């Protein structure tokens, strides 16, 4: 009986640890792809802070953009308090890009423009069984 309690305690401890590690806001390693019903590829590798440091990004709205109804970017507003999928559904609607295309445009579009950073599929979608593709 005693043995079993200890076992459960250890199990609980480790599951909380694993849970915390995966969902820690402090340490983003992958783009959250939970909004995709059936993601085909591994989530895109993305270390938030490191990326911004390397890219020398000051403005959150660079990526966390807000567009008005006419499809114009609103310069002073940003949307870091929202999930990308709050606006971008899996399927495109009106002028709003589909979620996957939004990601690709946002990330790869900038990389192509700046000639920096990954542009080929597997450079972001790194196959890694640990990422739980």
């Amino acid at each position, binding site marked *: 009986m005693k043995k079993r309690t200890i076992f459960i305690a250890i199990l609980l401890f480790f599951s909380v640890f694993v849970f915390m590690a995966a969902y820690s806001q402090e340490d983003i390693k992958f783009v959250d792809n939970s909004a995709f019903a059936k993601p*085909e*590829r591994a989530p895109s590798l993305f270390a938030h802070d490191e990326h911004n440091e390397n890219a020398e990004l000051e403005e959150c709205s660079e990526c966390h953009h807000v567009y008005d109804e006419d499809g114009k970017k609103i310069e002073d507003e940003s949307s870091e308090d929202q999930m990308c999928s709050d606006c971008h559904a899996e399927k*495109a609607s009106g002028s709003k890009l589909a979620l*996957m*295309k939004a990601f*690709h*445009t946002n990330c*790869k579009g900038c990389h*192509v423009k700046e*000639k*920096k950073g990954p*542009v*080929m*599929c*597997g*450079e972001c979608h*790194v*196959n890694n069984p640990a990422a739980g593709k």
Partner: protein
Amino acid sequence: MHDVYNFVSGPLVWVAFIVFIAGSLYRVISLIMLVNKKEKFIFDYMSFKYSLRSIIRWSIPFATVNWRKHPVLTVVTFAFHICLIVAPLFILAHSVLIDESWNISWWSFSDTIGDIMTVIVIAGSIFFLIRRVVLPEVKFVTSASDYVILAIVAAPFITGFIAYHQWFAYPNMMIFHIISGEIMLMAIPFTRLRHMLLSPFTRAYMGSEFGGVRHSKDW
């Protein structure tokens, strides 16, 4: 790497498609013009009905005596050719690129299906290679060019397969994949890969002769 990528996935794609399409048009049009110049009678014997009859019959696995005589080859060659044409058109990654470039939401199938089709093409290439080396009647008529065109066809699929699975040298493999695909497209009108363009015509003519004149079956 950015410059290389931009070049092979930008201007070189255009070059490849222009060469492929213009070259193919040239091949087909010049053939028809040659018929017009020297063998005009062929037009008189061509029959739409019998051309179609022959092409359709040979496009169905096991519908001809020779397909039935070679069941393994028949399965392989149909699977190989279907995957060879269909996979590049509807691979998810290609569809994404098409969407990004031209804003066309292109149909695609899942990566798993794409992966299976790629394996089928590679396995088919290996089958054809072994056939060339092992079967005396094939070996006897095989020349270096036969291996070259087989390699040209297999290369984009092998590199694509390795790149997709990110087994090694990912960025380079990706570049090889793109370049080899472009080489394959450009090779079609200028190597015996042009059987893709011309075989409907030879088939149609033979079908017309057998149907319209010989009152017999060409299968």
